[in-house]
């Protein structure tokens, strides 16, 4: 029986753009390590095209090819034919998942997790929170264990926060004076469970910029690890819930690059009807990355933000998360922030927008390549001479910390939100990291 390929057919014109020039090889972080045709966008595009033509089955080898992609979009940025291989790969994963179910490698995490007492304990502690992450009964805790095992496969593991964000951050956070707008804060799982303090800092900044900040408890996982892996069905449920949770807000602000891009991509991948597409589009239009919001929406009040004293005189560099610079086109704003903070010295590192190699679950299933890609980042950070590398993606932060510590580099990894002094004691239950 021929495979149905409903999702790929929807993105067929993206697949057919490729003219096989092979330029993608120069930009693909994976190809630059492996030098194999299947690793570069052209190879994936051809296999997908053969699948659409009925020559290539949705085999294990096919899955390996489409799974071996960071969705970093570097090739897309430079593709002369404007091939959207990110669309094609995501759709191919969805068709594969629909036909064959998600592959064993996605549940392999349990095999990593269960024998490891420390991680298992953390996972157990987290299990009680997983109704928050995924809709009840929908595949249980699929996503967070993935995330945890990414930390576990030989990595330097950040501590799971003693108290999660929703335990310490109120649902309503009024502006100090008359609110200029109503911002829905989308925390994302990593900020919720691993970096709650970063979440507090961002909310403090948003309030200092005269925003009323709502942290609606109905929000859950953005869906990235689920639907970027091809599970559109679960992704859709998550999307619907998140869209509902932020209905009354003027903006949806997140400090997680991956979450931001996943929220903005709901209409591209997950809408089932034209009406839903429109609803997702309206939601996506409200989404702002934290940097983007601070500079583009609240710029006038920027003078109110000061550098935290402990960063005085420090030299920092910026790492562009793929999901921020390429997926959301946000790269000038964070630099504007870093340059505006008195007492902070900003230097560019070489190839600041080069992928760090995490790629979500990619780093679990392809840890060796992931590490090699991260090594280039370590070299770049070292070349900049910075005391700290600043970014706006908890995933990148985990990867950068792991890579820098593997190489014994004493360079701090910070979220941009951590830099600010907002003239108030930190919120309760969130010790300064």
């Amino acid at each position, binding site marked *: 029986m021929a495979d149905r390929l409903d999702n790929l057919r929807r993105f067929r014109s993206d697949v057919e753009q490729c003219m*096989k*020039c092979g330029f993608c090889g120069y930009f693909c972080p994976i190809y630059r390590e492996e*030098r*194999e*045709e*299947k690793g570069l966008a052209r190879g994936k595009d051809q296999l997908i095209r*053969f699948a659409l033509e009925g020559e*290539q089955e949705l085999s294990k080898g096919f899955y390996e*090819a489409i799974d071996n992609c960071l969705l970093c979009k570097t090739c897309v940025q*430079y593709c002369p034919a404007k091939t959207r291989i990110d669309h094609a790969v995501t759709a191919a994963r969805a068709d594969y998942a629909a036909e064959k179910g998600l592959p064993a490698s996605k549940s392999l995490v349990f095999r990593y997790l269960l024998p490891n007492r420390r991680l298992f304990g953390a996972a157990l502690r987290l299990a009680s929170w997983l109704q928050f992450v995924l809709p009840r009964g929908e595949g249980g805790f699929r996503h967070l264990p993935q995330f945890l095992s990414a930390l576990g496969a030989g990595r330097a593991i950040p501590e799971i926060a003693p108290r999660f964000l929703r335990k310490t951050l109120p649902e309503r956070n009024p502006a100090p004076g008359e609110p200029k707008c109503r911002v829905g804060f989308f925390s994302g799982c990593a900020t919720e469970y691993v970096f709650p303090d970063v979440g507090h800092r961002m909310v403090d900044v948003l309030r200092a910029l005269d925003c009323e900040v709502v942290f609606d408890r109905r929000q859950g996982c953005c869906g990235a690890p689920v639907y970027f892996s091809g599970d559109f069905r679960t992704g859709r449920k998550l999307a619907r819930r998140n869209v509902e949770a932020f209905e009354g807000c003027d903006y949806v602000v997140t400090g997680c690059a991956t979450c931001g891009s996943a929220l903005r991509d709901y209409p591209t991948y997950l809408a089932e009807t034209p009406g839903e597409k429109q609803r997702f589009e309206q939601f996506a239009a409200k989404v702002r990355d934290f940097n983007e919001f601070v500079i583009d929406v609240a710029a006038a009040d920027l003078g109110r933000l000061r550098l935290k004293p402990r960063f005085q005189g420090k030299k920092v560099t910026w790492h562009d998360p793929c999901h921020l610079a390429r997926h959301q086109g946000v790269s000038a704003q964070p630099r504007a922030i870093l340059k505006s903070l008195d007492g902070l010295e900003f230097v560019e590192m070489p190839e600041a927008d080069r992928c760090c190699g995490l790629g979500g679950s990619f780093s679990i299933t392809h840890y060796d390549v992931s590490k090699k890609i991260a090594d280039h980042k370590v070299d770049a950070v070292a070349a900049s001479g910075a005391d700290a590398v600043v970014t706006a993606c908890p995933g990148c932060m985990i990867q950068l910390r792991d890579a820098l510590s593997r190489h014994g580099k004493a360079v701090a990894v910070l979220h941009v939100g951590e830099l600010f002094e907002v003239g108030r004691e930190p919120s309760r239950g969130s010790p300064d990291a």
Partner: protein
Amino acid sequence: MAREPIVHHLAAIVGRENVLASEEDRRAYSYDGTSTWRHLPDAVVFPTCTEHVEAVLKLANEQEIPVTPRGGGTNVSGGSVPIRGGIVLAMTRMNQILSIDAANLSARVQAGVVLMDLQTALAARKLFFPPDPQSFLGATLGGIIAENAGGPVCLKYGVTKQYVLGLKAVLPTGRTVDLGGSTVKNVVGYDLVSLITGSEGTLAVVTEAVLRLIPLPPARKTIVALFDDLPTSGATVGKILDAGTVPAKIELLDNWVIKSINRITGMGLPDDAAAMLMFECDGTHDVVEHDSRTVLDVCRRAGAQVIVAEDPQQALNYWKARSAGFAAVFGAAPTVLAEDVTVPRTRMAEFIGRVVDLCAKADLQVTVIGHAGDGNLHPSVMTDANDPAHFARAQRAVDAIIEAAVEFGGVLSGEHGIGLEKQKFMRRTQDPIFLDLMRRIKEVFDPKGILNPGKIWEDGRG
């Protein structure tokens, strides 16, 4: 020989991690940059040293297994398609720049080094390797040498064969030979370096090359000239050269491409211009000033509207726009038949006129783009391989374009090579004695005919 034992033997040579044989991997090595040529190999091997290549070829020669060398797979001739199956020898993991010798203006590289990576390393030393095939982001030096590749700056600097001083190459029998050396002057015996260069991987597998470099020109300037009709732009090229100036690049874009550029980049070029020439003058500051003045004068006298790029960024934007415009050609129709004919510069205007004419008569959309400075044009006929009647008409037009090029004293391929794509024209247009000489040279190098069989003079369709 059955596939399993081949894989086993190959793994014993290069290690399991350097052999691929799954369905999907074989499919991923079944094509190159052309739109239609495909054939599955039985296995893909990644040598990481010359000794690996020796051992693989020895095995293949003993067992008479076809071997097709492949670099970045960016070629547009069908040359790296394993048309007889067998082994694809993927050179991409031999990608070390072994040395850069600024005092001798040379570099030693492994065959799998990507051109852009080499240029980046050279630029840091204020050096460059002139041949600039537009596949530079994916093409490897081994492939560039095998195809004797050209590109825009070849107008001033010449093609790849002028920049290869020496080669380490493995013969199809598995014996390694060092050819040439590292000096520019070298007349010791037959020039086998030049024979291997441009042999499209049919005579030997290049594993290392010593390349001739030149100092990076300190200044450059980009000039754009817009013309009311296409043949006049072609004629202007000859006039500029006649005035004693050789720009590094003279690129030709027709109205279709100009409009595409406007659509893609919003650059706002005049939509009604019939043709655009893009020049890059390079050299010392004085030379660049002198050359660009000549270009401006000649273009203005020919009635062109001229624009000089104000700064490097604007210049870069024009060249990026050109790339985008060229790329748009390939996405403009389901199938694009892009030719690579080269005619003497003095006949270019006449030739372009003929192409436009015969395509109009056949009711076919054609764009004429190319490296006008050296008469190397890529007339591209838009068609659809799934529409048999239209496709047949387009193929007849391409036949006529190639015949016209030959009639005007040109050649059927300037820089892409023959591979599989141009074989039928090869036999039709070349002296049988030339074809026979090639066959006999091949026999000397490759008695069992295992290396890249079915290419150039040998029928690949059988």
